[in-house]
Structure formats: C-alpha cells, structure tokens
C-alpha cells in the first residue's frame, strides 16, 4: 500500500482499511499454524500432542496387549528392555518352560 495514498484517504476509509488488515491477518496466522507439522498429531484445540508421551503410551499398549507374542522377546528396542520388562506379566512363562525330570 502506498503510504502517501493511504494518508490522503478519508479517516473513515483508513479505519476500515486497518480493521480489514487485522481481520485478514488473523486467519492467515491460524492457517500458518494449521500448516505446521506435529509429530504425534494435534489436540482438539489445535496444539501439538506431547510426542514423547504419545509414543510411550502407544508402545505400552502394544507391550501390554501382546504379552504372549514371545516368551523372551518384547517388540521393543533392546535398550528399552530394562525399563519395559515387567515380571508380573510373565507368570505364564514358568508354566510353559519345563525340563525333563531326570
């Protein structure tokens, strides 16, 4: 917008122009935020979901739900075994592991 031309316009027209600019800026700002990427999606309010929390809860759902996938191996990285292994979910292991009685 040409500053000189803007200043020459009537006051009412300038006020309308400024308000219009403000209104146009608001959806543009929202659009910019909407276009940003959240690694684990968004809340209903549009904010990014806590990525670490979401990934951890999803992995826990898989581990808790598939305790019979393997007697010894969980579907997690080896470095996470120590913090993920839960002996209270392995009560069945002793029943299924048996040896020949001499």
């Amino acid at each position, binding site marked *: 917008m040409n500053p000189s031309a803007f200043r020459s316009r009537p006051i009412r027209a300038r006020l309308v122009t400024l308000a219009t600019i403000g209104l146009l800026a608001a959806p543009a700002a929202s659009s910019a935020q909407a276009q940003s990427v959240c690694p684990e999606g968004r809340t209903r309010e549009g904010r990014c979901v806590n990525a670490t929390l979401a990934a951890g*809860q999803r992995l826990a759902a898989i581990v808790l739900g598939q305790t019979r996938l393997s007697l010894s191996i969980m579907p997690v990285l080896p470095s996470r075994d120590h913090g993920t292994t839960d002996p209270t979910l392995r*009560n069945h292991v002793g029943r299924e592991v048996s040896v020949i009685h001499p």
Partner: protein
Amino acid sequence: MECPVPSVVRFRLHRLVVTPVVAMGLLGAVAEARAVDSGLPAPAAAAFQATWAMLVDFDARFTSWSGNRGFPGGYALGSPGRGSQFYAPLAVQIVGQPSPDYRVELMARTGWVHARQDSGGGLAGSVSTLTDTVVSGTFTYLATPGWQPFISLNANLPTGSANLPGTRAFSRMDPDLVEVPNYGEGFNLGATMGVNVPIGEWTLLTASLSHTHRGGFTRDPVTGFGDPDNRFQPGASSSGSLQIAHVLGALLLKAGATYIVNQGTRIDGAYISRMGDTIALTASAGYTWNTDHNTTLSGSFSRAAPNLVLDPTIPAAVREAFNSNSQAIRLRLDHNYRLDAQWTLGAFASWFNRDANAYIPAAGAFSPAKTRIALGGSARYQMSRNAAVTFRAEHFWVSQRSRPDVVDPFFGPFADTAVPALAYTGWTVSLGGTITY
C-alpha cells in the same frame, strides 16, 4: 470534502482500530510462550518435508547365578545350583513420517544366546543358538485433531531352538534368574488396534484391543528321557487395555489396566489346561527435580483367575478347586542424574513378590511364595549427536519359601517331595549401543 475531526476523537478512533490488531499479535505471542512453557515444539515452517530415521540398537548381557538348588527346584539331587547366560539382542528400527497425516514405525529384532547350567545331580547342559526373531510394524493416523488411532502388527518368527534334545534341556533355567528362559517357540502373530486421545494439553488417554495367535511347535518331551517329542500347541490370547497419563507441572503420572483372556493349551492334540482370565494393573509417578535429576516410582500387579484343567474322569475341562496361579506385585524406583552433556548416570532398586497360590502346602499343586530383590546402576555416554553407549550392572537376590512333603488323600505322604527354602544370588552386566542415521 470531509469535515475535520477533532484530535481527541481521532485518538479514540485510532485506539479502537489499533487495539484489536495489537491484541491479536499479543495473543499469538502468548500462545507461543505457552507452547514453549509446556515443552511442546514451536510450530514448524509451513512447507512439509517427509522425515525418515533409521536406528540400530545392540545390547550384550551376561548373567551369572548360584543357589542351593538347580532348576527345576523340586529335584532334590540338583544341589548346588549354578548357571550363566550370555544374551546379545540386535534390532534395526525405521521410523518415518512420509505425510503430515500418518506415521510409520518398522522394527526387526533378533539375538544370539549362550546358556549353561552346571548344577549338581546331573542338572547340567548348555545351548548356543539364535533366538526367535520379532518383526513389528505400526501405523498411526495423525490427521484428526483429538484422535490418533494406530494399528500394530507383530510376529514372532521361529528362528530359535524350541527343541532341546538330551541334556540341552537343562539349559532352560528359572525365568526369575535369567532373561531368556526358553530358546524358541512357534510362529506367533499379534495385532493391536488402539487410539491416543489427548484431553486438553496435559492428559492423554490410550485405549487398545489386542489379539495374539500362537502357532504350534515341536519340542523335547515333557515327560522324560527317551519319550517321543511333543507337539506343543499354546493357546491364543486376547486383551483390552486402558491407560491414562497426566502431566502436572514437573510430575508425570501414569496408570493402566489390562484384562487378558487366554485359550486352552494342548500337547499332542490333547487338552491340557486353560489359564484363567488375568487382570494386570500398572502405575507410575515420575518427578523432574530440575534439568539434571529425575526420579520415577513404578508399580505393577497381576492376578489370574483359577485355571480350567482337564478332569479325565468326566472327561471335560473344569475349574480347578483352588487357584494355582499366584498374584504378583513389583515395585521399582529409578533415579537418573545428568552429569553433563555427555554423561547420564542412573540407579535403580526393585522388589518383586509372587505369593503362594491357594493350594494347601501339602498339595501337589502348591506353589510357595517367591521374592526377588535387585539393585543396580547404569552409565550412558552420548558419543555424538547420533550415537550413545550404555553400561548397566545389577545384583539380585531370589528367595522361595519351603514346602513340606506332598500328601495324597488316598495314598498318604510321598517321601522326599519336600522342597527346602531356596535362595539364589546373581548379577547381570550389560553393554549396549544405539546409532541413529
């Protein structure tokens, strides 16, 4: 021609227009500040770029244990007890976000294990084998605000050794003493469908349903030397899980409940038993004292209903008279200390208890109470931006209560079936590394 506007009026009109425009700018700044305060990432640039990362994770662990009896503990001549296990798992993971609307995670994990038991009375045997291999794929849909569903498919590929003929069978050890108590099973396929539901900015609810199909496999005989191998057909398992996590300032609270329904297990086609429905509860509280110190207290509990066992006199599956399953509880305390940008030290302590089952001590199906205590520490070194090494050491103590001779209601007591109090001690050390590409 426009009438001149008094200067005071011009100033008031100016404020009426400028104020909302300025306010919108301030609101945007406040929102960003809240995002920063909450630890949420600031909005990225508008143009989306697909991201992929590959991670290689390796860990080598050695466990050594000793006690007054070997495994199985009911064998009176198996004294003293002694054993060791070297286990080296390796995994490759690929994580990507090829679109802003979904996320993909793929993983393959296998390992190698060498185990040995050198207990008295002939309870001696060893095995060196590849373990089973687990492959995993998870797809998460991110396009819907407030609702992020996911589906995960996992498979256990039978690359290990389920059949251990001869004395190799004695390399199977107590799962409370070693991490890998068995060295192979059949093809198992597990699926989980779930959804993350963020409630506001600080709470996350996760609900999921899972099912695991377990394939049959041939193993060494469960009866005795010289008998034919057995075809083991474990039962499938289905479960439902509900979890919640809440961030309260520096405190992170989590809780979860899982209900598991199992199908019957067969050996050579004959029905053996079906484990009772199981309820498992978990909870944890983590507190971040400052940027360097973090403490987490976690607990878990499980209880299974009485099993369905075969009554040969009918014949049919009936609910057992007493619950042969023990309740289990575990408490664990972890503390991490970030020494500097490269080093992070950790310490942990855990207490695990499996109570006596519901049978009387003189019954053949009685299982006495058992406790495991562990103390340990770790040191993690961040070698570079994408590589880290972790060393961990742990000492543990396991104790099991005694039980008297078995007494049959018709035939009376069976001599030498009593089991004294069992006590074990051992240690585990591990060295692992993670590289991200």
